[in-house]
């Protein structure tokens, strides 16, 4: 079932349980209490940053399973992705989990790419229970995309701080506290911005495109959602998104369109324009926002996970940054 480009899920797949884990810096932020597990050291007890990222994803997945009272054999599909080359975090975690696995590659939009696909598979009855999640690690990302972790370079104020963390959720048709009602898969948008240290500005049009498409398809207005949460636009990207929405003539309360990248850290934590990374939307949604949905303080929510789809090679070769945003609408279950 669909409306325009938006998928509807008439069987009301729900999120049985979810979990969010974070690193030391996330543990000092305003959402510290919403993480199920905080690692005190950036290695998470492992030898390398890459292993630490896997540990984050595995921990989130295992905690979510435990909360739902399920074992690994109770899950028919594991949908995950990450920011490292060849998606090693997801596939190595899938090796540990031993579940049927599909790797995703949506950069920082992976969280909602995974949730949309999990809802689709479960709603269609092909999958009984799906586990979906994503992780990112600040230092693994620095090493992959920027400079060596201990290199003394100065970043511009437009830069964003990759979240060390993970989020995971379990989707099934069983009665659940949170129900997935619709998903709008984004198209790749590229308005020619090239600066990888200003990704929020590059991604804002993708978020705008997906949000407007979703609202048009559903014949809804922004006010129909208690909150619209973007993934990792940061301060500059969010300002641009609001400006675009305003130019399009949409009426909205700016305080109801927030960014996960501006929720994880305090302003004095030195994160420049805000947080980024696959775990930005994943940890905020599967931790903080899920708690609000379960508690009933948020009834209907649209999460719009944004992703920048470039690589260090395309950047060096002077290409612009293609971006994408996937939106998933969730409601408190009955």
């Amino acid at each position, binding site marked *: 079932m669909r409306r*325009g*480009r938006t998928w509807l899920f008439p069987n009301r797949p729900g999120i049985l349980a979810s979990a969010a884990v974070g690193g030391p810096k996330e543990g000092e932020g305003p959402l510290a209490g919403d993480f199920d597990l905080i690692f005190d050291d950036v290695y998470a007890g492992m*030898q*390398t940053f*890459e292993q630490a990222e896997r540990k984050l994803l595995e921990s989130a997945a295992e905690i979510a399973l435990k909360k739902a009272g399920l074992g690994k054999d109770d899950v028919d599909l594991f949908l995950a992705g990450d920011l490292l080359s060849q998606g090693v975090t997801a596939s190595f975690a899938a090796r540990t989990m031993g579940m049927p696995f599909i790797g995703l590659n949506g950069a920082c939009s992976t969280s909602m790419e995974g949730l949309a696909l999990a809802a689709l598979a479960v709603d269609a009855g092909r999958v009984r229970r799906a586990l979906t999640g994503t992780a990112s690690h600040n230092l693994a990302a620095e*090493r992959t995309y920027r*400079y*060596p*972790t*201990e*290199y*003394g*370079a*100065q*970043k*511009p*104020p*437009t830069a964003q701080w990759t979240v060390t963390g993970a989020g995971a959720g379990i989707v099934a048709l069983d009665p659940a506290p949170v129900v997935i009602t619709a998903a709008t898969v984004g198209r790749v*948008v590229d*308005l*020619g*911005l090239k600066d990888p240290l*200003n990704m929020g*500005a590059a991604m*804002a*049009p993708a978020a*705008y*495109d*997906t*949000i*407007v*498409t979703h609202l*048009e398809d559903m014949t809804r207005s922004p006010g129909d959602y208690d909150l619209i949460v973007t993934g990792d636009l940061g301060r*500059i990207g969010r*300002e*641009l998104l609001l*400006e*675009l929405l305003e*130019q*399009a003539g949409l009426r909205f309360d700016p305080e109801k369109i927030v960014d996960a990248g501006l929720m994880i850290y305090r302003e004095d934590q*030195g994160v420049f*324009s805000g947080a980024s990374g696959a775990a930005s939307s994943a940890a905020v949604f599967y931790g903080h926002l899920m708690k609000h949905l379960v508690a009933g303080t948020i009834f209907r929510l649209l999460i719009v996970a944004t992703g920048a789809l470039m690589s260090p090679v395309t950047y060096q070769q002077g290409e612009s940054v293609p971006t994408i945003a996937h939106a998933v609408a969730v409601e408190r279950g009955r």
Partner: protein
Amino acid sequence: MARLPEAKAYQALARSKETTRPVAANVARAFLVGGLISVVGQAFMWLYETVFGFTEQTASNPTVATLVFLSVLLTGLGVYDKIGEWAGAGSIVPVTGFANTMASSALDARSEGLVYGVGANMFKVAGPVIVFGTVAAFVVALVRAVVEALV
């Protein structure tokens, strides 16, 4: 379907929202920290000249070695990148910055082994400095040789 803004117009809008680098503050910080590193270097130079009997010419080698050692130590202790975030060019331009690029690259690549990790990656950031430093030296020498031949 949503109508996207025109690319040129959006790029201009994005530029208008961009927080610019605080150039004046960055320059002041670079001056302070760069100067401080140089003062430390000068102090070591005096030390080597007065206590260890080096001449003004020969004292520069142990001085550079000491600064490199301190920079590598601070890199290993996870301090130099924090200094760099604050000081910018102030801690990149002196010899300590060069040592930091090599030490940080080596540290990062350690998990990939000594040869293909540390060995292959140590010059990843520092390499261009050496390549273009050599090229520049060659060009300058060539210009000098030509000028000398003509004059």
